[in-house]
């Protein structure tokens, strides 16, 4: 389909707006990301002006200016850390003020931070999005970025701008410019139709990848985001596949008669770790992503499954019922040194190692199903959600937000949700149909 080459992002803004003066960044304006109950920071994100209205395949540059600011507003609001001013409180910013804000007006608006910018037609049919962040009370510029994209990718420029603002004010890594692959669901509970689907982190640019003829489960991105590994019941044989997003081609990973499932890529993309059931016994294996003979990593007579690599690739966390109920274990990537890390009440399942390496997200099965996090040694357990059935966590690229799916009692209908590490900012993720098994991909380059 329309696989566009990745844009050469991040241009130097000074080259475009020559009159800009760089101010030294002051760190007085900061968002406390761990506060949880602290008030979100008031921020103004007015429509971005254009020096001259030029038509593009994605709309003219004036209309894009409004849409870019809308996407930035939505991203920052959804993070739970910012409180964007309503449109009625915003001023119309002329292009001449794009990098010279009216600090008196914005100071009276109640905003503490201000995001301004512009959308300008560039060479080769591209557009340039300028992005400036100001400390309103300090009356200083905090950071600036410019993004040159083909018009069809205008949303990516907006996400990059929101990421710039988020990172500068929180000190955390960016995550808005990223994609999610998940399982779209429809139909009655006894016969759900499941299709792989891919979309931007905010639900935009939604696209189905499979047609629903076979059940598909548990998709996971490769680190390069060009391939997805998942399980499919194609031909009534439940096995894992690797799917190329660019070409639409898919390939069986391990060709043998047993059920293979719960696949996940290693951080370098060279291996797929997965589970295989042989005669009723499930163990964890790994295989080269290009195929070959699987290497067995666990040998317990119990169910060992849901393996997930540490970001440095040296360890694997997984669940096993070898002690009776499901619990979490960590082992070396070659299968040696298997140690249990979960000891709380109830059962623990579907562990996922944080991309920052410091935490493991999991599903906890007690009275209900909840999503929680713990340290990699099992310490500091914290439950983040409380639904009838919350399951299958996946980390945002910066390790601050977790996406999961929530199944309704009785209806069996599942939906995607996100929650941040404070546990207070829980919100639904928009999908056209029902959704389950989300996998949040890495930050786009």
């Amino acid at each position, binding site marked *: *389909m329309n696989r566009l080459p990745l844009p050469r992002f991040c241009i130097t803004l000074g080259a475009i707006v020559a009159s800009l003066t760089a101010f030294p960044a002051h760190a007085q304006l900061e968002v406390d990301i761990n506060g949880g109950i602290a008030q979100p920071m008031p921020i103004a994100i007015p429509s971005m002006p254009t020096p001259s209205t030029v038509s593009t395949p994605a709309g003219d540059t004036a209309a894009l200016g409004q849409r870019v600011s809308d996407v930035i507003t939505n991203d920052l609001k959804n993070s739970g850390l910012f409180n964007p001013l309503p449109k009625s409180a915003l001023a119309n910013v002329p292009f001449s003020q794009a990098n010279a804000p009216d600090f008196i007006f914005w100071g009276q608006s109640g905003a503490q931070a201000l995001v301004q910018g512009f959308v300008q037609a560039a060479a080769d049919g591209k557009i340039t999005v300028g992005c400036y962040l100001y400390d309103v009370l300090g009356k200083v510029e905090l950071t600036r970025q410019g993004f040159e994209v083909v018009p069809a990718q205008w949303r990516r420029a907006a996400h990059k701008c929101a990421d710039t603002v988020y990172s500068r004010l929180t000190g955390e890594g960016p995550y808005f410019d990223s994609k999610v692959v998940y399982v779209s669901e429809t*139909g*009655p*509970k*006894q*016969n*759900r*139709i*499941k*299709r792989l689907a891919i979309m931007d982190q905010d639900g935009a640019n939604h696209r*189905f*990848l*499979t*047609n*629903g*003829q*076979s*059940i*598909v*489960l*548990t998709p996971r991105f490769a680190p390069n985001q060009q391939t997805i590994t998942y399980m*499919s*019941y*194609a*031909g*009534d*044989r*439940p096995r894992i*596949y690797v*799917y190329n997003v660019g070409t*639409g*081609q*898919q390939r069986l990973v391990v060709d043998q008669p047993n*059920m293979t499932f*719960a696949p996940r890529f290693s951080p370098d993309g060279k291996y797929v770790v997965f*589970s295989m*059931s042989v*005669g*009723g*016994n*499930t163990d964890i294996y790994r295989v080269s992503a290009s195929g070959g003979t699987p290497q067995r990593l666990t040998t317990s007579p119990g*169910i060992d*499954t*849901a393996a997930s690599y540490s970001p440095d690739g040296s360890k694997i966390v997984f669940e096993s019922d070898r002690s009776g*109920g*499901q619990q979490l274990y960590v082992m070396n990537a070659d299968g040696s040194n298997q140690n249990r890390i979960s000891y709380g009440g109830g059962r623990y*399942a*579907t562990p996922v190692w944080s991309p920052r390496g410091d935490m493991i997200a999991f*599903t906890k*099965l007690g009275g209900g*199903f909840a999503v929680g996090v713990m340290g990699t040694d099992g310490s500091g357990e914290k439950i983040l959600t409380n639904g*009838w*059935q919350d*399951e*299958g966590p996946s980390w945002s690229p910066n390790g601050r937000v977790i996406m999961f799916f929530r*199944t309704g*009692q*009785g209806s*069996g209908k599942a939906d995607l949700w996100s929650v941040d590490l404070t546990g207070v900012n829980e919100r639904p993720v928009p999908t056209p149909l029902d959704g389950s*098994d989300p996998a949040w991909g890495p930050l786009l380059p």
Partner: protein
Amino acid sequence: MARSMLNVALVSALVLTAACTKKKVEDLPPPPAAAPTPAPEAPAPAPSNTTIPGSRADFMQQAGTDTVHFATDSSDVDSEAQSILSRQAQWLAKFPNVAVTIEGHADERGTREYNLALGDRRANSAKNFLVQAGVSASRISVISYGKERPVAAGSDEGSWAQNRRAVTVVPQ
């Protein structure tokens, strides 16, 4: 066995809309009968001339049910399941050319991956019982559907008990 082997054509959204307007999910087995008819008390009368010996209908008539149930998080074959599987084994002994598939299922109160493994465990428990009862292992294939294909739609103990099952599927 003759379920259509649809390949996993991965198609563009456009083709997909067309594909989905016709009949859906043709590669999945039909759900087993929701309420299995109990085995007749009296010896069954001579099979009516509509039941073909060796067919699925014949199997259902003779074995009484194609389904055995399991306790929560268990793949143990209890005494009730044993008597059902014994009847299934007797029927299979009469028709040595029939190959079957045992589907293993779990209730919704487990995580997806674990339930796939649990369904596989249950299907293999039923298979192992049939093999010990004399059915050749080469005649039995297994497939786990985890929690993907419940027969009872409720979120209650009664529905979950129905969904924790292994189903012996005889070709039509």
